[in-house]
């Protein structure tokens, strides 16, 4: 692929216009230059669009590279954080891989967390929300459409969730919002 075309594809990825296939290939082949380019372009766009610019952590680009690198040799990485780090990186750059809660613990791929495509972001449902950044949700949407509403939730996860919600609600910053998250999970699970 020529350098120009590569940059064009990277730009399309940033604008949410890259196809799923292109996104995956770009992620696979991205190098250190791409990481630098990615953060410079984001910064430039944010400034141009008059958005508040929140500086990325100093080591963001190197962590992105490490994460992308890790993508290729994940099996060699014995560290128990390797997979988490990969997940963190992917989410940081708003990639198509969005984790679905409903897939918790149902994986069959050994110690590797299930990384699934799904639409965990609200994007086009509403008008009035300023949507900054790329909308990957369309490209990432599974062929079957939206995720099935009812999914099994382990009792253990329910307990962690309700205890966390209680701690969070006691902070009071957002009133009942933490409990709302828990109730919506409880109501949308499979009946026990």
């Amino acid at each position, binding site marked *: 692929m020529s350098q120009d075309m590569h940059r064009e594809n990277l730009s399309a990825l940033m604008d949410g216009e890259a196809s799923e296939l292109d996104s995956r290939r770009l992620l696979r082949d991205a190098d250190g230059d791409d990481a630098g380019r990615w953060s410079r372009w984001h910064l430039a766009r944010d400034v141009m669009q008059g*958005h508040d610019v*929140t500086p*990325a952590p100093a080591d963001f680009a190197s*962590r992105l590279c490490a994460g992308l690198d890790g993508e290729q040799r994940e099996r060699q990485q014995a560290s128990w*954080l390797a997979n*988490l*780090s990969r*997940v*963190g990186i992917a*989410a*940081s750059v*708003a990639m198509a891989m969005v*984790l*679905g809660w*409903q897939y918790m*613990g149902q994986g069959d791929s*050994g110690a*590797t*967390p299930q990384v699934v495509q799904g*639409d*965990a*972001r*609200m*994007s086009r449902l509403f008008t009035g*929300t300023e*949507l*900054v*950044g790329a909308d990957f949700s369309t490209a990432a949407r599974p062929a079957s459409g*939206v*995720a099935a*509403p009812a999914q099994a939730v382990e*009792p253990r*996860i329910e*307990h*962690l969730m*309700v*205890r*966390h919600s*209680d*701690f*969070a609600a*006691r*902070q*009071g*910053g*957002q*009133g*009942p919002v933490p*409990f*709302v*998250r*828990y*109730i*919506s*999970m*409880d*109501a*949308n699970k499979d*009946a*026990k």
Partner: protein
Amino acid sequence: MRAGLASLFLLTALSGPAVADEPVSLLARMGEAMENTSYRGRFVYQHGAESSTLEIAHATIDGIEYERLTHLDGQLAELIRHGDQVICVHPDKTITRFARPGEANPLALQARLARQIPEQYRVKRAGDDRVAGRSAWQLDVVPADNWRFGYRLWLDQSSSLLLKSETLDHNGMALERLEYVSLEISPVLAVSDFAAPANAAEQSLPMVEQAVVSERPVRLEPRWLPAGFREAGADTRLEQGYPVTARSYSDGLASFTLFAEPLAERTMRDSVGRRGPTLLVTRVVELGGDRFAVSLVGEVPPATAEQVFAGLQLSLAGGSDD
């Protein structure tokens, strides 16, 4: 402080909704109003492709705070709060009940909202809007770093109650949205409006003293926290017979909780899940020859969870720190 806020509230109510207040004090007033106002309303809660309609009733009767959240569509699930008692009514009609002693001091909360939030977030007025047929102030709560999410909040101009909220990632994408469609201030509510329904079976999440359990609970010591995060609570509870230790942290708006539990004979594998803004990470670790599951649940970006895990120190309570 309480009297001061009350008179400030009165002053605003008398002088009408056009008063332009400091955004930060609006936020402090919201925290106060969410606790002390009686209200009943319906709202839509959405994240991803999932959408829920809920009803809320909230009142303080004889000095006790009552709250009832009811899931209106799909399966019935409810959460009822009587002061420090939390009752979860599940879709299969079973109930989980637990106590939360040591209610946070409201004045401490006010002080926290007034003092701490400016350090970690910039709060800006973003104009006026209408939500649920009511005039609202819109606030943008912009995080000062990438370790936490941002928020857009719509506050009722007359009551300061939260009418709408969005949690935003650092690209400004909404990860969840809560929006009232109707709200009634100071409705007539009695204790009977917060009664728990008859139930099939009940389980509790009892707090445990460390000496009672045969399994030794794990002590969690995060060596790294994002700026502004402080411990917001800790306890150990029995879940299905296992002591699960929790330590929660908050910066006043965002929270995450660390959990540790002995696995004994159970099998569990590393996993990562996400629901709207909520991240759940579980890692299986070995400590003193035994296996433990360490989890983080919270509304923080994945990179924050990663850093917290990287700095996490584990030790066995009541034993040598190996």
